[in-house]
């Protein structure tokens, strides 16, 4: 068993090395035919840019995508500088330099990777999947009978902020930075998922397709780990299955298939304000131009946020979304599960959390207000503020940096729900409902708590669960995503997530005291 595990780890590391190596492979040549076609299709009229590229890049060979991408991006920037100085506004290229570079690089690849997409997919993704399974499956035997097996989590370099954690931290942050801001650097990773993308949507893969595919693969593999770890716990098994289903079907397959039928790409479970660009002008226009189906999406999106979300939170708490449906939650509960204990439980963190998460919600709502005002008044500026600028700031700071780079990159150091806890505006919105108007609570079982602290330690949202449990109080917190792990790790059967009447939801359990005289006093006091 141990040998199989070691073999799996070896395979994973080998594939990781190959994966990194892939970035530097292949060669790149932008043919003049491809370039001319690109210029025409994208209405680029900047002579400076065209001449620059023709002189330096077109029909030249490049051995990595990095230099090529940077040269193209620089060419865009210097052409734009020139046109702006000369006030030649019609020649300015409005596309973002690295998005444009990505598109050109994508059509310039030649050589081993481009020619062997499927083979390299097998060697990378295929072997990684096998390696991961070989590494994880032996846990069924090695970690002993079913039950909570958190042994050595705080002895391991990977899960106790050791060097492995810092390495993963650095890698994830780099990955997200490249994904968001320099997609052409990972062009070879994108090439190898082209066949799958073409099969699904008919289009070659983009970096977002690669990300979606990778997301599904990693979630599935880490869900296998969850199934093994919590095989005695039906709540965890069902919840993990639900997350997996919504990620693969709703976030990945349906949107790609919609594109094949020339419908807008849409994730039916992604609710505003997490889906922050739902009300952006371009999205509204696209939906309105897509006929009845577009209109249906528009209505569904509004109903989802204004009716479905609050009603479901009332009946089940925000867990119905965060721990059963959401994509961010899905990654956090699978890939992130080994890191849940790293969230800070200090009162200070709770204060920061409340300011930050509600701040983002307010930001999202203000931005959307401006956007809609601008949309209906057909203005690009509202109160002298460019709507686009606000959207760009939100997209960069919240959409990319907070949700992506920090949200996932910080897993190995600050726990798996950094985004959900400190940043997600939808979580903030649902949290307010959960706190004040919901049937959900975590019930504390009378006086059985022994203050051991497993619940607080393993709360990914940094809730000091024990603080409530040891007082016999139910846990009603805006941030609770109802993952159910506190209840799972409790060695004394003290905690139970449940939905029930609002009456008596918060009140502390008088039995706790065991002191019957006080019990009566307490009842009279109330």
């Amino acid at each position, binding site marked *: 068993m141990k040998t199989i595990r070691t073999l799996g780890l070896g395979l994973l590391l080998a594939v990781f090395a190959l994966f990194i190596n892939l970035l530097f492979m292949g060669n790149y040549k932008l043919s003049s035919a491809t370039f001319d076609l690109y210029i025409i299709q994208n209405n680029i009229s900047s002579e400076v840019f065209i001449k620059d590229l023709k002189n330096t890049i077109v029909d030249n060979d490049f051995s990595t995508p990095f230099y090529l991408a940077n040269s193209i991006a620089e060419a865009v920037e210097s052409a734009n500088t020139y046109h702006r100085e000369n006030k030649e506004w019609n020649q300015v290229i409005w596309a973002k330099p690295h998005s444009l570079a990505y598109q050109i690089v994508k059509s310039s690849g030649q050589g081993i990777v481009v020619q062997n997409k499927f083979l390299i997919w097998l060697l990378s993704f295929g072997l990684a999947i096998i390696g991961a399974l070989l590494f994880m499956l032996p846990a069924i035997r090695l970690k002993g009978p079913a039950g909570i097996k958190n*042994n050595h989590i705080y002895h391991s370099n990977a899960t106790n902020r050791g060097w492995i954690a810092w390495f993963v931290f650095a890698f994830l942050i780099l990955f997200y930075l490249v994904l968001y801001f320099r997609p052409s650097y990972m062009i070879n990773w994108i090439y190898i998922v082209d066949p799958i993308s073409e099969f699904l949507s008919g289009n070659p893969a983009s970096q977002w397709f690669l990300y979606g595919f990778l997301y599904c693969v990693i979630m599935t593999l880490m869900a296998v780990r969850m199934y093994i770890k919590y095989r005695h716990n*039906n*709540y965890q098994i069902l919840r993990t299955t639900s997350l997996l289903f919504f990620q693969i079907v709703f976030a990945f397959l349906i949107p790609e298939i919609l594109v094949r039928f020339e419908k807008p790409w849409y994730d039916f479970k992604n609710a505003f304000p997490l889906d922050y660009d739902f009300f952006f002008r371009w999205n509204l226009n696209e939906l309105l131009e897509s006929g009845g189906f577009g209109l249906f999406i528009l209505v569904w999106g509004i109903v989802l946020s204004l009716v479905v979300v609050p009603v479901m939170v009332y009946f089940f708490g925000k867990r119905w979304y965060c721990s059963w449906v959401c994509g961010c939650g899905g990654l956090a509960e699978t890939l992130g599960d080994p890191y849940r204990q790293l969230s800070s439980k200090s009162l200070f963190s709770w204060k920061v959390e409340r300011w930050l998460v509600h701040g983002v919600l307010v930001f999202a709502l203000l931005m959307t207000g401006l956007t809609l005002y601008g949309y209906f008044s057909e203005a690009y500026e509202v109160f002298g503020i460019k709507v686009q600028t606000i959207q760009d700031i939100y997209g960069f700071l919240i959409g990319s940096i907070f949700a992506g780079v920090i949200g996932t990159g910080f897993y190995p150091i600050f726990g798996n729900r950094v985004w959900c806890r400190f940043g997600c505006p939808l979580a903030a919105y649902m949290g307010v409902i959960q706190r004040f108007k919901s049937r959900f609570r975590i019930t504390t*079982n009378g*006086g059985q708590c022994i203050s051991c602290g*497993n619940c607080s330690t393993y709360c990914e949202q940094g809730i000091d669960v024990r603080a409530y449990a040891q007082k016999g109080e139910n846990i009603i917190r805006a941030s609770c995503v109802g993952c159910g792990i506190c209840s799972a790790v409790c060695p004394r059967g003290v905690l139970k997530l449940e939905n029930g009447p609002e009456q008596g939801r918060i009140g502390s359990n008088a039995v706790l*005291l065991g002191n019957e005289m006080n019990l009566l006093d307490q009842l009279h006091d109330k």
Partner: protein
Amino acid sequence: MEHIAIIGNGISGITAARHIRKRSNKKITVISSETDYFFSRTALMYVYMGHMKFKHTQPYENWFWKKNDITLKKGYVKQIDTAQKNLIFSNGEQLYFDKLIIATGSKPNKFGWPGQDLKGVVSLYHKQDLDAIEAYAPNNSVCKRAVIVGGGLIGVELAEMLHSRHIPVTFLVREESYWNSILPSGESKMITHEIIKNGIDLRLGSNLKQINSNEDGTVKSIVIAETGEEIKCNIVGLTVGVSPNIGFLKHSTIETNRGVLVNRNLETNIKDIYAIGDCAEQRIALEDRKPIEAVWYTGRIMGETVAQTICNKETLYTPGHWFNSAKFFDIEYQTYGRVNSEKYVKPNESHFHWMHPDQTKCLTFAFDKHTHTFLGINAFGIRMRHEIFNRWLDQNKTIDYVLEHLEIAHFDPEFYKTYYPEVLKKYNVETNKTLKLKSKSWSQLFTLKS
């Protein structure tokens, strides 16, 4: 301002301090020689196993004490001058008090075995025990084998701890089946099986004769009394119960027996001096309870009770119906009311026992033979609702009523399979009855009086 001194920063002392602070602005000093801050000693095992760090065992952040104006003092009280109301510390320091709460907890028992004080003989109670276990049994190359003596709850925890580091464990248990003085035989057998299933070398009916020493004063081996067998080991865990930690009171005027003798107000024979928690002994045992009860929640209740008395609201210690919980490797245990083992079973007490075929879940119900009043439940592998059982015990429900309404007492996580139809079926067969399971009703569950 009145000065309340509390000796001991465990659950009892800290609960007392917190509740005195809630109700008054008296000056409070909590004294401990063990640690700077309150921690939950029930969680020490999880630190060794790597589930937590030591700081996670501390329920309050370090700023909490200053913010609540509770002074923490590290020191060892050597003597109490009850006449002058003075505490005398081992370093000669003195501290005047107006009222004193003794909450010094327990110390692990040692029964005079040869070698019981060798290096590598440990218990599992204090923070220092954890440090010692970490030092003598960091892994299975330094510690080739561990021997645990004493078949109680702490022994099985220690076995699980050492097992987590793949250290072979021999577990000496005096009884013929694990914990069978407390558990009815079916349950005792089930847990015995669970211990063996986890790879522990369980030696039933075995007592320790002596611990042999290496030349450097470390543990070399132990000898079993019954067989004379010598077992080589590097660490010996003595987990044969605890007794009140009151040695420092020997020469004081405070009356003691095994523990510090207190009345229902938790007051000792000396005015203004109280004792709570593991170290307190009730002069007259409360009905159905022992005069000394070393469990977590009684310490907490006593802390809260004494705080009220000290804050001029005289309150009797009334712990209510017995309950408790534990975990044996992967099997959780909860009990409400009294279910006695064959050894201590009451003349009027009868049992109904249900066991799942997989031998990891079982329920035992105790009831009165004549009146059929429900007396208590032992639940293994199934979580039960404290509040509901407390209510049923209060209301003297019958065993039939309890079995019919088990659904509302269910506390396992959502989507867990329930076994109550099988339980009831077995009961119906055994008693020739036709009881039917009532479905769960929220209104019953959440009404305090029903």
